[in-house]
């Protein structure tokens, strides 16, 4: 019901606002109409209930009590700054690893708790949509986010943007013409742009798209707001607060040294203007030191039957893998995704690949010849008795057992996990198993038992999203995801702020497998396992190739006709990563020189 503030009979004070009577008022009014009277104590309790939950100004934040993480003081201060000083529109530029997502999540949660934000759009690079969803659910208990990859979202097409209130979407998808037209009509209460440095160029479709979004609050997150020149900074701030840095011409005249677009002048004035929209905490400012991390690669030879199976599956995949163009046209069971899964499963264990092979072999739409091949491969997988990685793992665990050091063993596949559970129990190890299908209470119990007594946690990637596992400092990758971000997420379970001991990562790598090549380029080319959490995002973001890392890897693998060609392809990818890392390091140095410690909240 809407009550206007002007009536014919009663002059009403104050203008320029609406009074809205909440539908929730009906319960109390109906009780009065029915003369359904309560006791005085119940009446008092009802008033107290509301008194306890009254929302005050942003001096007292509600979100910290309502999230599943304990934010650091600088993160709380940043959230408060974004709420009070920036009035919900800010550029969060903390150094990598300091938790910009936590800060943005706190601001979002605060607005949602206060009922100020209903319609939310989070824009991320494609590789990070799932990670954002996980973090929103596990850390901020915001479980109803959909991503543009979800089937229900895709089914609706452009209509999905107005149907769902909480959306995480990749920039690449959102800016596509058909989606863009739908999105531009919507008024968002909050827009969050992760890796906002992708909007550094105002001539791009991405910049124009984000600039035209209708939004009340907006947060942009990037560790490197400026990569090449100051124009990029101008472009980012102009999306947030047009005019904050004046017009482009005026900005250049007042703040950029003529002839050197990288060099600022009138720094004091520029700093004052930026301080109204930008926060940049550095590790040294907030006294956060991440523990060192060290990687050990255990290279091993597959047993002959394993090798034979691996090569046979790889050959099959190479022969039938469609090109990207064919992928769109191809229907039937042997899609690119299925073949990629086969290749990844065989990288984990023969037990992981066997069920998929059997299922495919039974598929009526496949030619008889392919069915026969798949059936033969499935039988071959069933006949592998000794597994080299299992033996290496048992040796490693035996060595570990004496020290009593806790470790998490990761595998991607349930079949591999079941096999490992059996062999580890047979070897007398004290372990707990953690997998996605456990109930919430069972997961809690598993983590509690691991902390209290068990030495090993055998887990799929579901392990401990948002949980505190810092009491453990060792992890073993039984199989290795091809996507470096997935590896980062695994490592991030134990290597996070609060971990005080050196983190050790053991990678089991079978020679001549895709995982072996991936590990080689990630470890030896860019020292991935020694990077700070978050740096990998930056490096991948600097890759010229816009395809997913997994896609690139699979293409190299599928196109190569020999080991040499695989090596050459991977070497090339490694060099691209080295270059991307170099770009990131240069940007980091430049940003440090530009902003230093002027924009921290501490």
């Amino acid at each position, binding site marked *: 019901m809407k009550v206007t503030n002007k009536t014919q009979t009663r002059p009403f004070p104050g203008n320029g606002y609406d009074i809205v009577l909440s539908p929730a008022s009906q319960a109390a009014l109906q009780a009065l109409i029915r003369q359904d009277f309560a006791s005085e*104590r119940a009446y008092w309790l009802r008033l107290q209930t509301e008194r306890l939950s009254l929302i005050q100004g942003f001096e007292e934040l509600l979100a910290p009590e309502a999230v599943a993480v304990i934010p650091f003081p600088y993160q709380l201060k940043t959230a408060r700054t974004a709420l009070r000083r920036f009035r919900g529109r800010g550029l969060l530029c903390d150094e990598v690893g300091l938790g910009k997502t936590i800060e943005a999540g706190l601001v979002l949660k605060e607005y949602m708790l206060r009922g100020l934000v209903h319609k939310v759009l989070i824009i991320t690079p494609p590789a990070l949509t799932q990670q954002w969803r996980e973090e929103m659910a596990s850390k901020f208990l915001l479980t109803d986010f959909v991503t543009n990859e979800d089937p229900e979202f895709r089914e609706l097409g452009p209509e999905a943007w107005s149907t769902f209130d909480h959306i995480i979407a990749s920039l690449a998808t959102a800016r596509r013409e058909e989606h863009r037209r739908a999105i531009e009509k919507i008024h968002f209460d909050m827009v969050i742009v992760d890796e906002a440095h992708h909007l550094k160029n105002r001539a791009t479709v991405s910049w124009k798209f984000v600039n035209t979004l209708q939004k009340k609050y907006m947060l942009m997150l990037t560790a490197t707001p400026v990569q090449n020149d100051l124009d990029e900074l101008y472009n980012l701030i102009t999306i947030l607060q*047009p005019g904050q840095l004046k017009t482009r*011409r005026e900005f250049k005249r007042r703040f950029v040294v003529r002839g050197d677009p990288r060099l600022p002048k009138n720094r004091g004035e520029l700093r004052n203007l930026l301080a109204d929209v930008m926060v940049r905490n550095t590790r040294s400012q907030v006294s956060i030191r991440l523990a060192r991390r060290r990687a050990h690669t255990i290279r091993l030879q597959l047993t002959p039957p394993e090798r034979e199976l691996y090569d046979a599956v790889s050959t099959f995949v190479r022969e039938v893998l469609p090109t990207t163009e064919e992928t769109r046209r191809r229907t039937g069971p042997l899609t690119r995704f299925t073949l990629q899964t086969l290749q990844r499963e065989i990288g984990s264990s023969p037990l992981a690949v066997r069920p998929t092979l059997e299922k495919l072999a039974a598929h009526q739409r496949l030619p008889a010849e392919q069915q026969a091949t798949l059936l033969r491969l499935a039988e071959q997988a069933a006949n592998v008795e000794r597994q080299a990685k299992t033996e290496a793992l048992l040796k490693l665990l035996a060595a570990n057992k004496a020290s009593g050091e806790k470790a998490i063993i990761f595998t991607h596949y349930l079949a591999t996990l079941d096999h490992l559970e059996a062999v580890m129990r047979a070897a007398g190890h004290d372990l707990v198993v953690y997998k996605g299908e456990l109930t919430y209470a069972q997961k809690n119990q598993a983590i509690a038992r691991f902390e209290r007594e068990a030495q090993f946690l055998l887990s799929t990637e579901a392990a401990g999203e948002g949980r505190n596992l810092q009491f453990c400092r060792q992890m073993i990758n039984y199989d290795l995801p091809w996507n470096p971000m997935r590896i980062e997420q695994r490592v991030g379970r134990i290597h996070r702020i609060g971990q005080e001991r050196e983190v050790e990562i053991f990678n089991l790598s079978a020679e001549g497998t895709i995982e072996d090549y991936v590990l080689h380029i990630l470890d030896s080319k860019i020292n991935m396992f020694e990077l700070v959490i978050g740096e990998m995002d930056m490096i991948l973001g600097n890759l010229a190739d816009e395809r997913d890392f997994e896609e690139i890897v699979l293409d190299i693998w599928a196109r190569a006709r020999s080991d040499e060609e695989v090596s050459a392809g991977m070497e090339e990818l490694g060099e691209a990563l080295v270059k991307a890392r170099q770009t990131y390091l240069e940007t980091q140095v430049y940003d440090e020189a530009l902003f230093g410690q002027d924009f921290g909240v501490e």
Partner: protein
Amino acid sequence: MSVADSLQNFVLAYCEEVGGLIERPAFGLADVLLPDEVAHRLGTEPLVRLAFTEETAAAHPEATHLTYGHPLLDEIEEDMRGRGLALRRYVNQVRLERPGLFQLIKDELAFPNAWLQPLEGAVEAPQICYYVRFNFKVALVTDEKQEELASVLMNLHTGQPAWELEAQEILPLESEYRLRPMHEAPPAWQPELPLHSPERLTWLQEEAGRTVAFKLVPTIQALQQRTARRLELDRARLEAFYDDTAADLERRLARTEDEARQASLKEKLAFARLERERKLADVEAKYRLRIHLELINTVLISQPKIALQARVENRYASAQPTFFWDPLLHRVEPPLCQVCGRPAPWVYLCANGHLADEDCILHCAFCKRVFCALCKDDVGACAVCGKPLCVHSQIRCPVCGRVTCQEHIGACHRE
């Protein structure tokens, strides 16, 4: 009272309200036995030990440490949202007679154009009158939100806020009616809405909402000033930015003779205009003030008052209103203006028998009769001097048909 104390009072009062038994073995500690269905509803065991301070919780690790944000507290709050929605209270401790009420009415109220006369057969008689206290949760929403509880006491008969009664620090409210039976006073405003009807209570709730907003005017104005300042700054920034952008584009447009370039610049100009509108709309929406009211609960209060009907009359008309003596406030209640519904301590009698306050009347410039705004059709204006003239004093010009006063007869159609 500390936060822990107020929390403890709240939780234990709730437990008692829902039929729980409570023992307090130590300071800050309570053993509560809840009825099974309540325990089930709250998702807890029927027998729970609750600790309200950190020290107690540390000393009794088996106890549930209740703090803000604890799921059990959330459940209790949720349960309470459906309870305690209305309360009934009575004013019993008042004298039910007021000798000499007629004279008091004459003394306390003013009748500038009429006389007050006793009505034959009319006697002073007590009648039950009602007030409703509305307790609202008020949220003031701009780009941030702040909430507070606000109460207002409304007269069910008049629809007016009972400011004076509200200002009384202690109202003698009791849970039982202890007086002899008496009639209910009729509605004084909106008489077509029966006293306890859903329509009348809904209307009263809306009036209460407006009154709450009135009470919050200082807070609202302060908030409006703050947000207006922010809006002004944002708007100035945006307007300067888009003015400069447009000027820059126009300058470049004036300089170029290349048609393709001109077209491109014109397109950019049009886009900049569109973008300016959108960004301005964004900031205005962001800072617009909205007041959200949620009715939490109400108290229906009944209070006897002494009623006396009397006659108000002058040369042209008469009325027989009922006047009320309020034995709590010890005063005669001013009758309501029949035009605007507000209390009228200065009561004018309209030539058609309506009672109205000073702001709602017109005097005929010639005969000095008084007409209220309800009778505005009986009042015209002189075509020459514009002064108000009632139907009795208007002179219609036989030549042009217009109306004038005595003074301007025939002047209406002169060049």
